[in-house]
């Protein structure tokens, strides 16, 4: 016996070295981790960071994702510092200039009530961002916990849980949210809006995550955990949720767009953010009635919304490609390879 072990110990080292070299044409996450490890040295703690830094590197390598990130940072800076660089506020109208197009004093012009549009837009941008981010994080957390739990329990509780989710889903959540958020008013209205959006926003997502967790729960390591006597709660927290990790992060980023879209829709319908508060959706509803006389009132918030959503989308796409080696990565690699081997005749 002891011989066997002595024989094997040096072999193990050799194995690990070989394993570190990566294999196959399509790299799995696991192999990426491995590559990261190889590049990042051999310290114990370095490895997790190594994986993240590899994802980071893959993300940075994508130009469109970086463009999205830069735009988003600029927008966030605008939302934070915007209110301080203009003498006007979104609450105090300038009665000397009503319906003025963009000019040196009022950078984005004013609306019919004399409100400075720049002040309104930067405030609304902040609102949209805050609502989008909080909504997205909350729904992801709730959906992850509910979805994985339903997937893990099996049997009667699973059936009841699924019936309940289906039941909640048959009535379009848009309608349910509308009923709740109509009560939103005043400066605290945005909190109500977040609560309403979150209350019904997680359901469909939880169903999706359950489906993903279903395949995870059949993995041997989940069965192994059960047979080792690990409690269901610990199994969910230690195995199921971390293994959905990259999907959860990605969906949180994309969920922000959903939150912003919902805010816009409800506020436009007069159900979400209302005066005296303001938001991009609210500005759109105000401006849509004066589209001919003062087009800038709708066009400027529209432009800001488009830029905001597109930047988030670019970041989300970049993140997806960075996390998932099976998506666009193969294609970009092909391109790289072709460039490298350009002098040679093309393949068959």
């Amino acid at each position, binding site marked *: 016996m002891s011989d066997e072990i002595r024989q094997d110990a040096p072999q193990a080292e050799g194995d690990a070295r070989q394993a570190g070299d990566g294999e196959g044409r399509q790299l799995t996450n696991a192999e990426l981790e491995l590559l990261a490890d190889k590049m990042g040295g051999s310290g114990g703690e370095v490895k997790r960071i190594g994986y993240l830094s590899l994802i980071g590197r893959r993300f940075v390598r994508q130009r469109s994702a970086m463009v999205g990130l830069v735009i988003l940072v600029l927008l966030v800076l605008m939302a934070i510092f915007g209110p301080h660089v203009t003498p006007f506020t979104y609450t105090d109208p300038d009665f000397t200039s009503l319906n003025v197009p963009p000019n040196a004093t009022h950078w984005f012009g004013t609306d019919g009530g004399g409100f400075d549009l720049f002040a309104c837009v930067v405030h609304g941008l902040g609102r949209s961002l805050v609502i989008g981010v909080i909504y997205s994080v909350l729904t992801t957390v709730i959906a992850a916990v509910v979805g994985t739990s339903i997937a893990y329990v099996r049997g009667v509780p699973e059936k009841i849980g699924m019936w309940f989710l289906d039941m909640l889903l048959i009535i379009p959540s848009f309608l349910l949210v509308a009923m709740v958020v109509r009560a939103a008013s005043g400066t605290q209205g945005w909190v109500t809006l977040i609560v309403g959006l979150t209350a019904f926003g997680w359901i469909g997502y939880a169903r999706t995550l359950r489906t993903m967790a279903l395949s995870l729960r059949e993995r041997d390591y989940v069965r192994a955990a059960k047979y*080792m006597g690990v409690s269901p709660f610990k199994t969910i927290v*230690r195995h199921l949720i971390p293994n959905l990790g990259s999907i959860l992060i990605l969906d949180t980023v994309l969920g922000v767009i959903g939150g912003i879209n919902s805010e816009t829709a409800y506020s436009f319908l007069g159900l979400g953010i209302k005066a005296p508060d303001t938001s991009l959706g609210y500005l759109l509803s105000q401006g849509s009635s004066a589209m001919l006389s003062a087009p800038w009132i709708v066009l400027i918030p529209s432009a800001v919304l488009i830029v905001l959503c597109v930047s988030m989308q670019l970041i989300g796409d970049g993140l997806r490609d960075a996390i998932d080696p099976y998506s666009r990565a193969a294609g970009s690699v092909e391109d790289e390879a072709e460039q490298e081997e350009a002098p040679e005749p093309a393949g068959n």
Partner: protein
Amino acid sequence: MAEKANDSTRGTWVPQDDVIRYELLEGNGPKGAPQGDPIMSVRNLKVSFATEAGRVDAVRGVNFDLWRGRTLGIVGESGSGKSVTALSLIGLLDDNAKVGGSVKFDGEELVGKSDEQMAAFRGKSISMIFQDPLSALTPMFTIGEQLEETLLIHNPQMGKQELRARCVELLRMVGITNPEERLDAYPHEFSGGMRQRVVIAIAIANDPDVIIADEPTTALDVTIQAQILDVLAVAQRETGAAVVLITHDLGVIAGTADDVLVMYAGRAVERASIDTIFDQPSQPYTMGLLGAVPKPHVAAEHRLVPIKGNPPSLAAIPKGCPFSPRCPMASGKCFEVEPVLEPFDAAEGHLVSCHKLAEIRERHLSFQEVYPELEPLPAKWAEVPRDQRPVVLEVKDLVKTFPIQGKGLIRRDRGTMCAVDHVSFKIHEGETLALVGESGSGKSTTLMQIMDLVRPEHGSIEVLGRDIATLRNNRERRELRRDLQVIFQDPMSSLDPRMPIYDVLAEPLRAQRWSAKDINSRIGELMHLVGINPDYVDRFPSQFSGGQRQRIAIARALATRPKILLLDEPIASLDVSIQAGIINLLEDLQVQLKISYLFVAHDLAVIRHISDSVAVMHLGKIVEQGDTEEVFTNPQDPYTKALLSAIPIPDPKVERSRERLVYQDGKLVSSSSLLPTLEG
């Protein structure tokens, strides 16, 4: 297709026509030496893929010829480039593959042809049989439609009647009964073996000259495998085609091939006719491969000798001879320069690529001399006879039924299926009981029933004398789990990829409420026990090879010092050269720790090697049970006889001379009587 870049890094490699010429001299197989011109000639075939990790050279200069009526077996482990070779012959590689060298079919160059040009050859002159019959057929179309399509592509003038008649003929040829009715069935209505027959029918529909079979039986049970190999032989006889049989299983090769090419790291390392390769393997890798597999037809006498290390990844092929890091003979030059195929014996055309060729030839080195000396099997705690030791696990009359549900829209219950049907067995301390059976025989279900630790539907399960029906709560279950652990088939999926090894090993201990300090020292012990460097505890499972991962899974199962280990096909997903190491480890651990194993497997060779007693399962029942040697040498039940007779034996002479037995409706019949008759 110029491939200069590659050549410059790997030394010059010219098509070795003068070496290839020796092929014609071979002839100690059943068909003698090849006659006439080859139908297909492959010269200096190279395939590389552009990947994120850089360029991967999957095939690096392979040469061979195919003759009509002969079968070339290509043997190799995962990553040897054998499947890529096969796909490049028929032009089905992915778009990001670069193919170099030459593939000539009947004198016509195929490399460089467009997809449209190749389509004219595919299915007509060259056809292919794939590994997984379950996904190889389009689920939307009937068997008949798919067969007819094959015929119509190349014979658009065929009439309806003619098509149907030919389809019926083809299905009959591959041994499908009731072909007229079966034509209108959809693939999902067929079993895996039946679907593979249909795939073969498609492959031979247009009377091809070359049939490429890529691991055609790997996904199938052993008895089905034997039948499919027979069908393949019929297909070859019918079409007179050259067959390329790609496999990792030396037993499959022994019974079917005329010539053999052994591939390693994208190159051929040895090439010989079938009897030569088994009689006189001359490349250390081939020797190791043949030596490492347990023999199903002889009793185990000594420990297996593993080839150390792992097959190299194609993205990082070692410098020099790719086998050198694993080769016991490697020295100096082996680590520097890659060898080329040279004739081992000019008169026979036996080609070997090894720097030590001269030494091997002169000293007549064989497996025994090249690899470390064979050790006797470890003494199995002989002082107390097995049946006098305490019983640690006893299963009595265990029954497990599943409701059968119709698939799809209407899930109505169609009654129940008895997956485990009154199964009884017991395991003594330090004993290995193997549960053998094909897929669907209920062996894994039995195992999971034991692991679930809940009162069975019927019968009883006693673990260490405690009837599990008397377990009152989860705490008592958890305590029992300390003594009862499980190892799964695929270490890739049984270890959480997001957990470092330390946490993987700590998990069962934490579940048993061990203190952090005890856990720490126990993990150190465990790593030593299974032969993994304890410094690696911070690494993630993906950073280890398949064999190492299985060692880690074993360590995890041993963490709580269990008395009983249930093993669910623990080596089935590992490469042949790795399996031996794991088997040895399990044997050592048993001797050292006096654990009992319940070993579930379908590989009879492994079972014969490792187990003390065997229970053969068929359709949920144990049909035969007894001492391993007794069951293997003197089987009583007809199903056991058929099962044993279906195992391919890695010895061509034995394979050729024996008659297979097939279990049909409770009776044994010889397989030759079942071969489809051509007149029908």
